[in-house]
């Protein structure tokens, strides 16, 4: 394996890179100049050829999404950045925006040029006060230096970026709920088709891309589609930020090539489980992706391999539970999350998450019975793929996967009349990382 260089986290080690002078010093906005000299159609072809796929969880090919925008129509085209990161376990977009906000702005400007957009919006999670501050400052600096606004970088192309904050609702990370929220409504998913590329924001053609996805775009423009396609695996190209948390020595964001085995991410990058304990369960991509076990640690973390192992790559949020942790409790807490965040539009999701919470609560706290396991499986079956959006499907992930791999744990809970695992030690409190340091370690060593 060749030496690996981080791509989108490369500037995290440089403290000044979050402001425009530091960003320019490190070659920033060079890709934008290149892009503005390039035909938009060629830009779309480049991103297609790079194989870049959406980093918000679904993994849809980015270039194809851009290409779906109708050409030469009268309606304005919008680019909307999904910065509403909320999938439990995921914290990559926040750190990308805090440490390298100009990379995102440059990516937005390139994307806007590629799809013929004049006004782009950033839908920022409301609770991300500092990330928003960093991005707002970057927007102001970019206007000031002529990288946004009228006549971008001396061309006759105009690009505006508007920051918009959410107000506390996980569902708004779902792209059509996000658009409704941006239009000043309750964030509830829309029926598709029509897809946003045809009828999105204000019923105009709209591209919605995740922060990590857009942050990758300048690098593809700068170094070429072939270079990017050469990273990662054949079908999951490039690099991915893995957010590792839970029972590991060094929780943090780690950028690695797609296809890096889970064992490398957990043991080498994040330092493994403290005290040499065994990994019991882990999620490859946040709470919405089915649990896997220590039997799956050889799984390469790319879209295809994780799916073949029975889960989903999702956002690349690796949450690790060790042998002292209770999977029933974790499933309960995730399910409480979905019950709270279900927007209530679709009955299977609204009712299913509520009933699952009740059942899991009695399994964990006493009063559970064997029938409950059948009921949970059944409720899950009745929720899966029966809603407007994927929130309900995500809610089934911890249910079905915990029943599949940890049925014995459930049975023990029923026999014991509640959780038999007793008090579990909290993760030891360590000093938080200093600002300006980075979670990226020397991957070349690790992968060789």
């Amino acid at each position, binding site marked *: 394996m060749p030496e690996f260089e981080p791509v989108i986290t490369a500037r995290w080690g440089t403290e000044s890179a979050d402001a425009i002078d530091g960003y320019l010093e490190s070659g920033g906005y060079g890709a934008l100049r290149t892009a503005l000299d390039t035909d938009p159609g060629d830009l779309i072809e480049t991103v297609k050829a790079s194989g870049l796929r959406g980093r918000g969880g679904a993994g849809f090919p980015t270039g194809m999404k851009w290409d779906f925008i109708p050409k030469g129509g009268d309606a304005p085209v919008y680019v909307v950045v999904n910065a509403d990161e*909320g*999938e*439990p*376990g*995921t*914290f990559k*977009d*926040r750190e990308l925006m*805090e440490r390298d906000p100009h990379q995102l702005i440059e990516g937005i400007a390139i994307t806007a040029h590629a799809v013929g957009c004049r*006004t782009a919006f950033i839908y920022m999670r*409301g*609770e*991300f*006060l*500092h990330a*928003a*501050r960093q991005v*707002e*400052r970057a927007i102001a600096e970019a206007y000031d230096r002529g990288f946004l606004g009228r006549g971008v970088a001396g061309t006759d192309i105009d690009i505006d970026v*508007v*920051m*918009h*904050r*959410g*107000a*506390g*609702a*996980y569902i708004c990370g779902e792209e059509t709920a996000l658009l409704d929220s*941006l*239009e*000043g*409504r*309750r*964030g509830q998913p829309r029926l598709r088709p029509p897809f946003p590329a045809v009828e999105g924001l*204000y019923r105009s053609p709209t591209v919605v891309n995740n922060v990590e996805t857009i942050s990758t775009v300048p690098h593809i423009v700068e170094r070429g589609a072939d270079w990017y396609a050469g990273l990662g695996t054949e079908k999951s190209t490039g690099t991915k930020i893995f957010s590792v*948390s*839970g*029972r590991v020595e060094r*929780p*943090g964001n780690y950028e690695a090539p797609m296809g890096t085995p889970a064992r490398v991410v957990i043991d080498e990058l994040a330092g493994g489980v403290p005290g040499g304990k065994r990994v019991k369960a882990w999620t490859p991509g946040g*709470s919405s992706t089915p649990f896997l076990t220590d039997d799956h640690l050889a799984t390469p973390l790319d879209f295809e391999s994780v799916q073949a192992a029975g889960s989903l790559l999702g956002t690349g949020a690796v*949450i690790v*539970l060790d042998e002292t*942790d209770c999977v029933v*409790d*974790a499933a309960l*807490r*995730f399910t409480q*999350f979905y019950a709270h*965040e279900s*927007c209530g539009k679709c009955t299977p999701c609204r009712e299913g998450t509520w009933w699952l919470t009740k059942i899991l609560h009695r399994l964990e706290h006493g009063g559970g019975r064997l029938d409950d396991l059948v009921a949970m499986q059944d409720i899950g079956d009745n929720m899966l793929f029966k809603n407007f959006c994927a929130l309900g499907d995500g809610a089934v992930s911890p249910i079905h996967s915990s029943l599949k791999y940890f049925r014995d744990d459930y049975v023990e809970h029923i026999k014991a009349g509640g959780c038999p695992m007793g008090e*579990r030690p*909290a*993760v030891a*409190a*360590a*000093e*938080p990382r200093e*600002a300006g340091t980075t*979670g990226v370690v020397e991957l070349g060593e690790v992968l060789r």
Partner: protein
Amino acid sequence: MGVLSEELRARADELVARYPLRRSALLPLLYLVQAEQGYVSREGMQEVAEILDLTTAEVEAVATFYTMFKKAPAGRWLVSVCTNVSCALAGGRELYDRAVEELGEGAREVTPDGLFTVEEVECLGACDQAPVVQVNYCSYARVDPERLRALIAGLREGDVPAPVTGPKPAEHAATSRILAGLGDDRA
């Protein structure tokens, strides 16, 4: 007499002008009401409805959907404790209980001195810093019971500790002003 001050009423027009359609300014305007009142009152919603040419019911339907709009007066310091799995593994649930206990009467609504509101929240996107506590949306990392006590004591005495990144938190109403999109002079 409206809810919004003359200044904020003028700023509301600025916010509306940022969008191709007026209604998009609904969330920002609700934050403006919160900046004025510390929460979103019925009168505030009526005023927002008038500005955007919506019904009060339409505005209320939106305001009640989002957790960051407080429907009752909140404390000067909104203490949000994450108890989702990565934080729970690090003691987040115990930390929440401790915060409620420490602040005593009214902790979940607003303490009698008007200083604090404690809430249990979902994943804050900072799981590497678990357990995470936010004060007016500024994050404090790896908060153990001792750090929680020091944080609360600092807020009480007007000596606000520095969060893990960025400047110290502003008070809740002033934070709502930032959230409305009126700029962040603490940067």
